[in-house]
Structure formats: C-alpha cells, structure tokens
C-alpha cells in the first residue's frame, strides 16, 4: 500500500509502546462499535414492526445488566488510563545523561542550538541511540514541537522553558511540524529531523553542522554578558551593588521574603527578565534593571550557559557531551577554555573573552 500509508514510521524509544497502546485502543473501539452496531442492526431487523416474533416479557430495568455494562468499561478504561499515564510520565522524565539541545520557536521558524554552538534552522540533527533532551522556549506565541515519527510533542511557550525528550532509534529523515496554531504561516513552520548514526553525528557536529558557527553558547553568552553591561555590577565577588554569579548555578539561594530556591536555568532567566520577583537576601528591590523585552531568548540561553561555567563544579559535566564528540575537522574553540577562565576570579576576564568571541561571532553571522 505504497500510496496509502497507514502508520507513521516508528523511530524512537517511545514509538513502539505508543503504538501498542494505540492499537489496543483501536481494538477496543472496533470491538465495542461492532458489538453495539451488531445489536442495533439485529434488533432493528428482528423486532421490526409487523415481524411475528416472540416479544413476551420484555423488561425495562435490570440492575445486574446495568452494573455489568458500567463496570466492564470502567475497568477497561482504567487499564488504558494506567498504560497511557505510565508512558506519559516516562516521556516527561528525561534520563540524567540526556544530551541537551535548545529550541527556540518564533513565528514562523524553529531555531535550534546545539550546546557546542552549532545552530540550525528548521532542521534538527540528532544521534541515534542517545537520549536527547530539548529545552524549548518561544519568543512570541505558543508553538508545539512535534515529531510524529518519534511520537513526541510538547508546547513551546513564551516565558517559560518546556522540555521534551526522546531517543531516536532509526536513522533517517522525519517530519518536524509546528503543532500549535501560531498564525499565518503556521503550516510552514515545518522542517526535518535527521537522525544519524552517532559517528556521523559527531562528524556533522564537528563540522559545525556544515555551517561555520564556531562560537559556543558559553562564548556567545560571555560576550553578551559584557556587551549588555552585566559585568558592571556582577563581578568576581559579592559587592554592595550586586551578588557575584560565580558558582551560582546549582546553588540554593535565599530570598528576602524568606523563601529559597535552587538556581537553575529557569531561575536565572527569571532573575534576568524579572529580577524583583525574588530578591536575593542582602539586596534591595530595583537595583538591577529588568531586562524583559530587551534581551532575546537566544541571548538568555547563551548567558545561562555562560553563568553555568562560572566556577560551578557541575560545569564540566554539563558540557561533556558537547565537547566529547568534537573530533577532527574545523575545531570550534573548546568550551573548557571559558570554564577555566570563569574559574579565575577576575572581573576583567569576560572582556578578554569578548575579543575571541567577537571575531568568531562575525563568521557565525554569515550563516
């Protein structure tokens, strides 16, 4: 049935389980439809007006029957609920070692950043056999990142990070759709997901995704950090003006209202866009300007990546995937360099970094 495909390709770790549930539901639907349909048609025929059949002792209420046909659907429903919820929970909890890729949705394109700085638009390259976690945000309206062959989809919402993860299982090219209606060219916010053998993926990544963008997210972040003047206040150590961001990532912060939180990506983003929401203890309202509307989501992702490297013990591990696969080819500047720089307690460091970053950024913009 070449012309009439009946099912999308199964190309991720979720596809099989999903289809199992899906087809069970199909069987359920067919069974019940056939049962109901058969009875209705049979009765309509047999008990049609004027047909001489036994109609004695018709009954109108029958409790055991009512209970039977309430409980059976209930039980079947609960089974399906359980299977579906289990799969869903699985889809919402990414494995710890998942490789992170960033997705920005905007009317009407997908912008994707790999953590070593490779960027691509409307195409997503992923290795087969490795869990991939997409961290997604929208710059304008709500979109949805939908890969039918992987059976994954999640909304991409402005103002908050959302996540979806999968492990591609079969190399190939698959459809990528924007699932959530987002305006005029919603139907053209589409693209391709390319699942590659890990080796090829490594090569592709090392080639800068065939496009020369040799500036890592951390470097771009460092550059933005100084261009935007963050380093005027945030220096290597806590000052009266502002807390130091060194070692911030992953730490627990206490706030003036007594609450506390772990400084993760979402917290940092909030602190940049909306710093007065939760004010770090020892500082007052309205010192830091709110950057909402002034920085793009892309810049913020870069800055978060940069802040992560600032002396956080976790930084090496987080970046491992990106650096690990960098084999030969045109070597993008290595991320550890930034991390190392960050470790040194010098306020001047970011500026040095800027020089490197600015140069390489120019190449990148030719893309």
């Amino acid at each position, binding site marked *: 049935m070449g012309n009439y495909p009946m099912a999308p390709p199964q190309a991720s770790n979720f596809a099989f389980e999903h289809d199992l549930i899906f087809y069970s539901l199909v069987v359920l639907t067919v069974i019940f439809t056939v049962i109901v349909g058969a009875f209705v048609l049979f009765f309509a025929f047999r008990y049609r007006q004027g047909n001489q059949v036994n109609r004695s002792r018709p009954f109108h209420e029958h409790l055991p029957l009512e209970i039977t046909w309430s409980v059976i659907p209930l039980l079947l429903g609960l089974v399906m609920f359980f299977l579906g919820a289990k799969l869903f929970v699985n889809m919402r909890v990414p494995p710890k070692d998942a490789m992170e890729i960033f997705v920005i949705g905007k009317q009407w394109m997908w912008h994707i950043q790999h953590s070593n700085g490779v960027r691509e638009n409307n195409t997503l390259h992923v290795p087969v056999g490795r869990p991939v976690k997409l961290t997604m945000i929208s710059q304008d309206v709500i979109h949805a990142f939908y890969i039918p062959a992987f059976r994954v989809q999640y909304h991409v919402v402005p103002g908050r990070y959302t996540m979806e993860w999968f492990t591609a299982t079969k190399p190939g090219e698959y459809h990528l759709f924007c699932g959530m209606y987002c305006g005029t060219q919603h139907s053209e916010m589409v693209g391709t997901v390319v699942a590659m053998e890990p080796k090829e993926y490594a090569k592709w990544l090392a080639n800068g995704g065939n496009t020369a963008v040799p500036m890592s997210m951390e470097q771009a972040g460092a550059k933005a950090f100084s261009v935007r003047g963050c380093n005027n206040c945030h220096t290597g150590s806590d000052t009266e003006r502002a807390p130091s961001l060194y070692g911030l990532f992953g730490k627990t912060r206490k706030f*003036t*209202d007594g609450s506390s939180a772990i400084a993760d990506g979402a917290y940092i983003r909030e602190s940049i866009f*909306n710093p*007065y*929401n*939760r*004010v770090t203890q020892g500082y*007052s*309202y*309205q010192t830091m300007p*709110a950057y*909402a509307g002034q920085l793009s989501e892309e810049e913020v992702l870069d800055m978060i990546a940069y802040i992560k490297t600032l002396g956080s013990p976790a930084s090496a591990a987080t970046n491992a995937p990106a650096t690990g696969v960098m084999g030969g080819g045109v070597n993008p500047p290595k991320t550890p360099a930034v991390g190392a720089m960050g470790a040194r307690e010098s306020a001047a460091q970011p500026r040095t970094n800027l020089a490197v970053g600015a140069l390489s950024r120019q190449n990148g913009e030719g893309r």
Partner: protein
Amino acid sequence: MASVAEDHGHGDMVVHVHHQFENIDQQNESYIVGMWCFLVTEIMFFGALFIMYILYRWNYQQDFYGAHLELSQPFHMFGLQEFPIWGSINTTALLISSFTMVMAVRAAQLRQKMVVLKNLGVTCVLATLFLVIKFTFEWPPKFQHHLVPGPNFHPHAEVLHGAAPRASEIFFSLYFAMTGLHAIHIIAGIGVIGALMFLWNKGATSVTEDYVPTEMIGLYWHFVDLVWIFLFPLFYLIPA
C-alpha cells in the same frame, strides 16, 4: 406579551399572575428559584476572577504587597502604618446597607410601607456614598499616578512601594477589573432599588401585597455586598 387577564389558578386576585403560572405561589417560587440561579451564575462570573487573583498573588507575593500599599491613603490608625481609610468606610457603608436591606424586607413582609421606603432609601444613600468615595477618592489618584494598566502605565517608583512594574500592572489590572465589575453591580443595584421604591411609593400591589420582589432584590443586594466583603481584604489588607 400575550398575557391572559384572567387568573388561571386560585390565588388571590390582587396580585397579577402571569399567564404561564397557575397561581401566585408558583409564580413566587419560580422567581425565587430564578434569582438563586442568577446568583449562581454571578458567583461563577466573579469566581473566575478570584481564582485568577489567587494565582497571581501566589506568583507575585512581594509585588502584590507593595502595590497594595498604594490603595491605603497615608493615614495612621490602629497601630497600622498605612490604613485603608476609604476602603474601610466603604466596607462599613455596605455592611450597614445590607442591614437596612434586611429591615426593608422584614417591613415588606409586615406590609409597613413607610418603613420599607425609609430603609430602602438609606440603602440607596449608602450605596451612592460607596460610589462617590470610589470615584472621587479612590480611583482618581490612581489615574494621576499613572497606575491605570495599559500604555499609560508608568508609575513612579515611590507609588509602587518596591513592587515590580509588571507585577503591579497585573495587580492593578485585577483591581480595576474586579472593583469595576463590582461597581457596575452596585449601580445596577441602585437602579433596581430605585425602581422598587418607586413601586412602593406608588402603592403598586405587585410589591405591596407580595413581599417576594422586595426579598429578591434583597438577595441580590446581599450578594453584591458579599462580593465586596471578599474584595476588601484581598486588595486592601495584604499582609507583608
């Protein structure tokens, strides 16, 4: 309406029974059930706003505190740093008006025309007082300080008392939406109470012989008061 003049049931002929009803009892019961249904829709209407308020207050606790200080005029009373003097006067006014409304309904049951009129009159006056305070002492300062959400929202830092502008804009969005909607209900209330007084004054049997219309308007009025009893602490009395 194609109303049939004759009385279909066996109710007394004094009060007009509409053609679709069998008798006066059925008519009155229908009115009361209808009124309660209407109040249920009102509850859902305001309820959605209250839910929204709760969520945003949860999200922006500090900012809501800061923004709410601007609702209190700088009066120092009862050991409070800032005291919401106008809000308190208004709350008191509405509470008293609820009481006079109860008295009016009671008098209607006893068919004491003058007492009804007096009590309804006081209710109306108090309701008007509420609106006057709202529209002369409460809202105009917000306009002056550019606290009205929208393109003109650019208040000075001192009127925000440390709240973030974005969050206080939401605070004031909810403030204007909810108290505005409530004010519309007060205005409608004054309208119907006025109409009721007119009928009492005229001695229309539909109200003098039958306390149900008065009672229904009373129900409505209590509802409007009750909404305010929730609005007041939520907007004026946010603890630090």
